[in-house]
């Protein structure tokens, strides 16, 4: 799962850099021809601005994602740790009544007092185990949407680079420049709309998963853990 998440980042920054380089090369190329292009420049400018806006959005999204990369990895790791390092060993604490022969060799009020206390301890163990499982599931759900998001963002970057390569403005002839720019602006516009739509959709589903924190909160009160404490067998 962590690998799947990391893959979303693979080459992401390189793609962003290439996109930036391609765009800068295009702008330089156009500037070289600006006197020949003359009045056509007026029409080119808004199209170039549109492309620049799209790129800036992509860069911003990538920057935030990269900043959050390792914290989110820790969330994925933690989600597994609640299972491996908490739930599993907690389950190991449970005790079978037949673990010793005490039950067969101890009777009377003192024995039943102990039995009641031991039972309460076992119930608390089960309760805590369920809670560890619950929080792990919650984190896993959140992790899942992070992976989806990265996959989509990675697709968006690839799409941008593809559009810039296809347009090849930096190599276009002076006659070809206006058409190439127009086509690219259109392509980028579509890509941005589509990608943002998908990303917002994922973000919304993420927010929904996140809001299930109420389940986590409700796990904090439990009859088996009176007063949010481990049940006391021995007072004090």
């Amino acid at each position: 799962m962590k690998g799947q998440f990391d893959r979303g980042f693979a080459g992401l920054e390189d793609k962003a850099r290439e996109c930036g380089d391609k765009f800068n090369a295009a702008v330089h190329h156009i500037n070289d021809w600006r006197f020949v292009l003359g009045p056509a420049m007026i029409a080119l400018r808004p199209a170039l601005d549109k492309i620049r806006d799209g790129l800036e959005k992509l860069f911003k999204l990538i920057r935030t994602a990269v900043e959050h990369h390792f914290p989110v990895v820790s969330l994925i790791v933690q989600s597994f740790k609640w299972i491996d390092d908490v739930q599993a060993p907690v389950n190991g604490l449970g005790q079978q009544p037949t673990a010793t022969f005490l039950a067969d060799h101890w009777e009377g009020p003192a024995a039943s007092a102990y039995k009641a206390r031991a039972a309460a301890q076992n119930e608390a163990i089960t309760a805590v185990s369920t809670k560890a499982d619950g929080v792990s599931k919650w984190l896993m759900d959140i992790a899942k949407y992070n992976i989806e998001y990265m996959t989509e963002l990675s697709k968006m970057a690839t799409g941008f680079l593809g559009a810039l390569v296809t347009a090849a403005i930096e190599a276009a002839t002076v006659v070809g420049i206006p058409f190439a720019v127009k086509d690219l602006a259109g392509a980028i516009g579509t890509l941005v709309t589509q990608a943002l739509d998908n990303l917002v959709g994922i973000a919304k589903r993420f927010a929904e998963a996140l809001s299930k924190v109420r389940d986590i909160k409700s796990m904090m009160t439990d009859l088996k853990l009176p007063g949010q404490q481990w049940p006391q067998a021995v007072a004090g």
Partner: protein
Amino acid sequence: MADFKVVTSELRKEAKLWQEKADKAEPIVTAVQNAYLSATAFFVGDLATLGAGIVNAELEARQYEEFRVFMEKVLQGAVTEFGQIDVALRRIADEYDRTESVNEIDLAKFYSV
């Protein structure tokens, strides 16, 4: 007098199990202590740029932390309790060996520190 029978060696064996549990529970407490997650750990997305009208995860991160603290406290309580049960059982066993009887009044004494 009191109607009971007991084999104190079994009682001591049982006590030892609780001591083992206390030892096993210690690393779990540590695991929960290390389970802290910052608010940035919840989402890679740039919610501001996406303009989805979604608030960031700060509130949820805080609630997660509350839960983590709760689990830590509960498990810490378990470590203490397991150790105390071990002691209580041993003391009861000692008392049996000494007097051959433990009555109701004694119980309250054994199940408190």
